[in-house]
């Protein structure tokens, strides 16, 4: 193990390390802690300039209810749910199929097609912006929930396919081979042999795609204009304009927007990290 485990050093070094950890953490999360503290302050503190010290009173309930009653935050949150959930379902489902095809069958264009999905996943959004926006306007999908989740699902299919293909490729191929010898139909092999084995990959992709799409801001701006279809990220920006200098409300709204991905991360931490670090070890 590197660096040398701290248990093997002197008790003094160990104690110093243990004591330094919380300090380092607070320093690292200082911006976040500051905004957390701001979100529970009263307007009085903000106006009197007490923005960094301890709050003179706690207005946690007032602030968070104010966000919901004085703005369309609830609508934005719900829109985000309506956009992310179908995106996850569609892109993961398509990627299971495509990843299976690219990992299991040996055909000439398998690798070029795989690289197409990989490359598509790296391109800048701006190169897609005008055509996708134009297409959405033409088909009546502009400023709708469906317009957003269809795009996200298609785009995230690239990443999901990359992930699934590599995951399935790492499974023992004998499983498929012996099923074929038994004469089992190809779709049955997919459904009964491979799909149960890729469950961890599905879980990892689900949490990752949920987080990516929940945090999307660019497409929310490109594909929506009104309140009816805006997700919370774009909503928070709108609130920022609406609550000028009401930093306690802006902070509360930002933190609300961050809760679902954060909850998702803490609940499914293992899968989340397994997904993000795919390929980081050989």
């Amino acid at each position, binding site marked *: *193990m590197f*660096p040398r485990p701290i248990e093997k050093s002197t008790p003094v070094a160990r104690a110093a390390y243990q004591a330094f950890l919380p300090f380092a953490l607070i320093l690292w999360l200082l911006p976040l802690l500051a905004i957390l503290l701001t979100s529970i302050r009263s307007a009085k503190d903000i106006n009197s300039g007490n923005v960094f010290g301890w709050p003179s009173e706690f207005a946690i309930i007032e602030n968070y209810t104010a966000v919901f009653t004085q703005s369309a935050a609830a609508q934005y949150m719900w829109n985000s749910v309506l956009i992310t959930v179908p995106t996850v379902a569609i892109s993961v489902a398509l990627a299971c199929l495509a990843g*299976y095809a690219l990992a299991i069958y040996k055909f000439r264009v398998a690798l070029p097609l795989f690289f197409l999905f990989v490359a598509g996943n790296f391109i800048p959004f701006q*190169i*897609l*912006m*005008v055509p996708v926006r134009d297409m959405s306007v033409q088909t009546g999908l502009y400023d709708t929930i469906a317009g957003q989740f269809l795009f996200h699902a298609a*785009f995230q299919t690239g990443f999901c396919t990359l992930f699934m293909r590599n995951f399935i490729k790492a499974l023992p191929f004998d499983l498929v081979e012996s099923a074929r010898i038994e004469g089992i139909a190809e779709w049955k092999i997919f459904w009964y042999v491979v799909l149960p084995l890729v469950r961890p990959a599905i879980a990892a992709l689900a949490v990752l795609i949920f987080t990516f799409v929940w945090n999307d*801001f660019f497409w929310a701006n490109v594909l929506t204009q009104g309140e009816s279809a805006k997700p919370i990220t774009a909503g928070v920006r709108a609130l920022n304009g609406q609550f000028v200098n009401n930093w306690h409300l802006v902070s509360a709204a930002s933190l609300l927007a961050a809760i679902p991905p954060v909850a998702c991360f803490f609940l499914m931490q293992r899968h989340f990290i397994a997904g993000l670090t795919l390929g980081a070890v050989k």
Partner: protein
Amino acid sequence: MTDAVQHPQAAPSWLKRNKLAVAPWIFLIPALIFFAIYVVIPIFESLWLSLYEWNGLYGPDGESTAEWVGFANYAKLWDDPNFWTSLRNNIAWLILYMLAVPLGLFIALFLNQTVTGMRFYKSMFFFPFVISQVVVGLIFGWFYNPDFGVVGTVWKAIFCEETTNILGNVTFTCSRPAPDILSSPEWATYGIIAAGLWPQIAYCMILYLTGLNNVAADQIEAARLDGAKGWKMLWYVVVPQLKPATFIAVVVTVIGALRSFDMIAIMTQGGPFGSTNVLSHYMYEVAISEYGERYGYGSSVATVLFGIMLFFISYFLWRMYQDEKGGR
């Protein structure tokens, strides 16, 4: 009867015979069609559109009003100072964002211990990556605020003297005014990059933590017996083993640097005076502005950005291809 059992079909159907050739396409078709419509075809449409001038409108007959201008959009880009500022800022992003890789490694090394509560610390250090860049942008926008942000407050504590006037109002007299980072054309971009580094370091850290978990213990021990330690051990024994993690960290950092949009849109909207624009944001600003849409010109900016990205993508794909060849 017996004949039928022995030969259920005189000759197996074409589909049966070619089942292994047809099956992958059946599995691939939904994803391919979807991906083609929303990703592959739009790329070529954008490239094509960059040779047109178009405000996004259609004539009454349903024909687009786009007008062919050839390379005029690119000629205009060449003379556009905002384009060059954006490009320069993109380069600044690319270079400075790379700091996330060594810094992420540094934090990973710091956290790669097994004392009690370590799991908690690791996940809390990773925290900034999970929250949306919009929120990170807002947090730092407030953090940098010279009047009531953290920077302003700390500044006041160091350089300002608090005085209470006759009316009982508190005023501050400062030996030098607090820096307004995001309003300064020279510093704003660096302020945004610093904010962007925060989640990116967290991402690189988690990659390295996973990598460090899988470093071969026997090699470390062997090197230790040979007297290697500290920086030498890190550089000659550990870092080479972390190569896959480093590769991914570099890939995601390059992509992240070139994709930076959210924070700029939130913190400065490209200002002051366009000094914090990057190509991704400038493209958006040009294509969808208050003064009407300029899809053609926007597409030419997007094409330049795409070209830069393509350079990196080709390298990444080439590396992946080498691995595929070597792997199996």
